[in-house]
């Protein structure tokens, strides 16, 4: 195995891709004291283990990492090994500059071919879960190998090819995360999780695509399963939740109709009142008057 270490600003090899901060393949053959102390991580880092067994600690939680596992370390997380050094083995590090992963939004930058709305959905899955360990993720290793080849060989089109591979890393990570999260789960269980999320974020302008991504299903399958299980199409179910929440607010608080409307995800108090009357037979005002 050839070891290498490309660093942004130092290594010519990765200069065409400013989003790559580090791309290194490391082989540990002897234990070196104090080689891997606990430290604050600065950029978003993926580590893919190819050999050995590691005990790594991220924000006070220690993970046992085996070959084919991927570890994700977020900016500002405290990362290292409690005994201060790397165990014997091998791994690949890929550190990426992502402009922003606040508020569950993933913002990859201009080089990416993934459209902004899809980046947002992916952010929802990756950032919201803040997972540190993705076990048994061989596909990730395959992508890293292709990247290594493209960067070394410089064949025609290598520039675009590497950008595509980095996009693929984000796509596969998102898919893997929603799959592991929902694998072996029966729809009612995943439905329950989504139901909770919808209730907690009732004012959020939800789309079916967004819900489907969270469950880890394609939109068509998701809508069909959702309807069979809940009895309502996803967006109608959301309206049910909004109306029930609004009824509770009308009966139990003195919030204005506009506040209730906006707080439960309607565009305006007018939109709220018409929908409410049409669905329940009463105006919101009447429900309030009888409280």
């Amino acid at each position, binding site marked *: 195995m050839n070891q290498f270490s490309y660093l942004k600003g130092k290594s010519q090899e990765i200069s065409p891709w400013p989003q790559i901060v580090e791309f290194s393949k490391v082989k540990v053959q002897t234990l070196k004291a104090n080689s891997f102390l606990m430290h604050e991580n600065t950029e978003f880092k993926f580590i893919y283990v190819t050999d050995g067994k590691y005990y790594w600690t991220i924000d006070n939680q220690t993970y046992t990492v085996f070959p084919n596992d991927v570890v994700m370390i977020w900016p500002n997380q405290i990362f290292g090994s409690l005994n201060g050094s790397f165990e014997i083995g091998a791994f690949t590090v890929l550190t990426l500059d992502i402009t922003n992963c606040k508020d569950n939004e993933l913002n990859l930058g201009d080089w990416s071919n993934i459209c902004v709305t899809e980046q947002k959905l992916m952010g929802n899955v990756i950032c919201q879960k803040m997972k540190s360990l993705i076990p048994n993720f061989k596909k990730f290793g395959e992508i890293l190998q292709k990247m290594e080849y493209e960067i070394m060989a410089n064949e025609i089109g290598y520039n675009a090819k590497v950008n595509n591979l980095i996009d693929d890393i984000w796509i596969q990570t998102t898919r893997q995360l929603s799959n592991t999260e*929902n694998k*072996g*789960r*029966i*729809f*009612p*269980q*995943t*439905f*329950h999780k989504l*139901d909770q999320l919808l209730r907690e974020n009732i004012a959020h302008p939800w789309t079916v695509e967004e819900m489907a991504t969270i469950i880890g*299903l394609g939109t068509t399958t998701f809508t069909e*399963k959702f309807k*069979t*299980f*809940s*009895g*309502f199409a996803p967006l*109608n179910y959301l309206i*049910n*939740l909004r*109306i*029930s*929440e609004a*009824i*509770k607010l009308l*009966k*139990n608080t003195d919030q204005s109709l506009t506040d209730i409307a906006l707080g439960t995800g309607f565009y305006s108090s007018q939109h709220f009142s018409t929908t409410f009357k*049409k*669905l*329940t*037979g*009463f105006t919101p005002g009447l429900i309030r008057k*009888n*409280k």
Partner: protein
Amino acid sequence: MDCILTIDISTSSVKVCAYDFSGKLVAFRKASLSIFYPNPDYSEQDPEHVYVTVLFVLRDFINEQILPSNYKIETIVFSASMHSVLPVNNKGVPIGNAMIWSDNRAKKEADLIKESEYANQIYQNTGTPIHAMSPLAKIKWIKNNQPERFKKASKFISLKEYIIYQFTNQYVIDYSMASATGFFNIKEKKWEEMSLYISGIDSSYFSDAVSVFNSDLKFKPNIAKALNLPKNTKVLVGSTDGCLATLGSGVFKEGQATISITYSGAVRVAGDKFINDNDQRFFNYILDDDIYISGGPTNNAGVVLEWFSSHFRNHKIIHDFEDVVEGLFKEATLVKSGSDGLLFLPYLLGERAPIWNSNARGSYFGINIKHESKHFLRATIEGVIFEIYSIGKILEDYRKIDQLHLTGKYASLPICASIISDVFGKKVKLSDEVENVNKGAALLGMIDAGVFKNIEEAALSINEKSVFEPNMANNEVYKKLFNIFERLTLKMREEFELIEQLQH
């Protein structure tokens, strides 16, 4: 054509059905309901969301299925699960969520009442075992633990009463539902003084109790309009899921019993007298004058199969519990009856009948080196059925049972039916009704319309789809295993307590 519309508000879903006056199911629709578990012992439902779900599923059902096929709704009949408690203030506004049947937080209150001098009289008069599920214990819990909420409450109602109140602006409770509260004297059909006394409330905290055939209710005009309901639609207050499932499976006379396996399970018999069990193990609910539905409920039925399936079976495709559990039953046929001596006690959620022990816990017994994953699967299914059998066996002290009628999505699977038949050593009948509870509700509507003279005649109209005869060789094996099942359950009483203390 005229039809009867039935609404069953069960724990996990609202099911609406339309039947024509010959009793044929002509349309069906279902919507899911969410249950919240804010603490391990708590199970709650949001009354407004339950209401909105019932309202919306009805609207979609009527507009998309009933009106386009030119049916006219003549009567609406209600059914719902038992034992829910919802405090409402003097304006009818819910104070918090409803505690549903599976809510176990009132364990301590139940134990105290059970040990008190009033326990015997309360059980004998109300017919409801004193347990955390009973509204008697739940209301006491609210009083002891949420005094503010208790003070604000002007009524304690069930979710069914809340939905009916939203639709009609009237508080009514049918005799069946009332007889599941622990507050209702089933002999005199009035609120029981002793229960009221120990709870520090009076009968004004409850709705007016009426016959299941009561039809004084009228939908509010705005709601009737929003639902596209004809103005003169008759509304029958109806009954509970337990009573109606029994009626809807054709059980009404001596010699018959119904076994229901859904999320939870029950064995029930119908009779003209209620069962006064010295150990207070059985419930007694009023269906109609001189018709009592008696029996015992188990916590650990379909939920155990679902638990096994989701933790010990890998599902490549995400699908529904029903399919998954059906798959389990098929796989179980790979193992002989009796699981080659592997035995399972299914008390994952504590147990109600017949041991009424909230601390009971599950266990596999007799594991040897040859047992494989499929043995555990079969033993799990058999354990659930042994638990059902343990209820049926004691019921036989009071009633003769010759044949069993099965209801509920799991019991109705043929493989499950044949195991039940072998364990009981009795003939098992499957009716051709899919929705026994809704069918029971429809029968009430048909009796009211004069199609049938009485409950007995209505029950006779249920047709059988298939009959399972017991295999007596298997029955021998099961008898031996069941003997060990009973002994283990009895022996482990102290160990259940000890292990439960480690589970908080």
